[in-house]
């Protein structure tokens, strides 16, 4: 099966382990991720803060390119990309006047979009389309005894709830169980990591990350599993600040769900982008690779 893939800016560089492991895991599951040609930035949470219509217009260019290439589905790995592209889609569908304006913009660029592309997140494809039975069938090195805090974050499910509960999602727990890992009770699973505000208001957002870190430590997790480049960045990069805030010294590896799936599928740590993080994952990788 071939699936149209929207990588997003973060996974090109800072979160390239996510891109690498997503492609490798999909290949193992019989899915080839085909990159959308010449995609542009979705605008994340930032472009929208300055210009509304243009932001949706930029986002819609990607949908138009996907439609032009004859696709009815496009998969994203970054929850912000997923939510932003999905939001443009949804607003265009919900409001014909809004749709007309966006299409005016697209037409000026020789493009158009009629609303035929469904934007999905990779975890939704893996769990709900490919299915956990197929996942189990590919497990050669079960993650037995690995205690994981499955951290879903915000935009994987909010605001649309198209993948799972907006309050208490479990999709990642279910996937990790199928890989043989043991999800710990993690009540903060859908709480925000601070997002982009971390970059500009670090001292006010570190407490948010500290809470997430402490909860995972207290529950005995060996790692926090994420589905978002920004969650990864905030938990991994700002862990020293979070530890200073807590007065603790918790060294918590932060990994993408695709990296753990890859290990369980018997893929090599190099193929999965391990080693490209700040808090070491070596112990975990040595044990399960």
């Amino acid at each position: 099966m071939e699936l149209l893939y929207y990588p997003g800016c973060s996974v090109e560089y800072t979160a390239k382990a996510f891109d690498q492991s997503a492609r490798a895991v999909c290949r193992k599951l019989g899915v080839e991720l085909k990159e959308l040609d010449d995609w542009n930035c979705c605008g994340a949470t930032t472009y929208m803060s300055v210009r509304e219509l243009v932001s949706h217009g930029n986002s819609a260019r990607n949908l138009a390119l996907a439609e032009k290439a004859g696709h009815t589905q496009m998969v994203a790995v970054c929850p912000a990309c997923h939510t932003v592209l999905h939001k443009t889609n949804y607003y265009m569908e919900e409001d014909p006047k809004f749709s007309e304006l966006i299409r005016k913009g697209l037409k000026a660029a020789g493009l158009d979009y009629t609303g035929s592309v469904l934007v999905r997140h990779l975890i939704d494809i893996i769990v709900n389309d490919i299915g956990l039975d197929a996942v189990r069938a590919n497990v050669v090195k079960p993650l037995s005894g690995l205690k994981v805090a499955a951290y879903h974050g915000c935009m994987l499910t909010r605001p649309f709830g198209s993948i799972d509960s907006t309050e208490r999602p479990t999709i990642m727990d279910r996937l990790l169980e199928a890989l043989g890992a043991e999800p710990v009770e993690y009540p903060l699973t859908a709480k925000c990591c601070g997002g982009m505000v971390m970059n500009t208001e670090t001292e006010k957002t570190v407490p948010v990350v500290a809470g997430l870190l402490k909860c995972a430590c207290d529950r005995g997790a060996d790692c926090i599993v994420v589905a978002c480049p920004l969650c990864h960045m905030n938990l991994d990069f700002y862990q020293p600040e979070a530890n200073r805030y807590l007065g603790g010294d918790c060294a918590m590896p932060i990994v993408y769900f695709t990296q753990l799936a890859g290990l369980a599928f018997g893929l090599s740590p190099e193929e999965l982008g391990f080693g490209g993080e700040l808090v070491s994952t070596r112990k975990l990788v040595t044990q399960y690779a």
Partner: protein
Amino acid sequence: MPRGELAKTPPADRLSPDELKRVFLDDVYALPGGERIDLCIQCGTCSASCPTASYMEYSPREIIAALRAGLLGRVLHSNTQWMCTSCYTCTVRCPQEIKITDLMYELKRLGIKYGYTDKHSRAAEMARIFVDLTNRRGRNQETELMMRYYMTRPAAAMANAARGLKMLLQGRLPLPGTGKTIKGLDEMRKIRETLERIEAEKLAKEGSK
């Protein structure tokens, strides 16, 4: 937004409280489902759900209270909307289904457009650089984004330098200027210019009311 727009903020409020309320509501009503703002019952679920409300000068609930009292200008001058992480918890919990996150975006845009935003606002500065980079490259190259942001903030840059270097060695930060530029930049420019013209026409119509 052109360079320097934030720095050209006028000293006094450009809009009267009534005008501000009208412009804000016109924009909000234009959002899909935007008219639901009128249904706010001031229950405070949004404020209680917000991960950063304790750092906001006005909590999400107070925004709508301020709007009704004709005090929206105070909110626009505050840090409130710039502390919003866009986590959408308020939006999914609001019993009246008001899209509060969208209101936050609208406040950010109005603040910039009418010069309420503090010209030293770090988040607004970050947003300005982000938009500029996206317009110039089609993608947002994070190294360039952070380096331009850190240029005027040496203390923050120093605090993160060692970790930045490690990321550079891991190949996770492209050298500035080496990031990809998309082929369809011209398409993006045409989309942008067309939609900016539509926004400007809308604004002119609002002004003549």
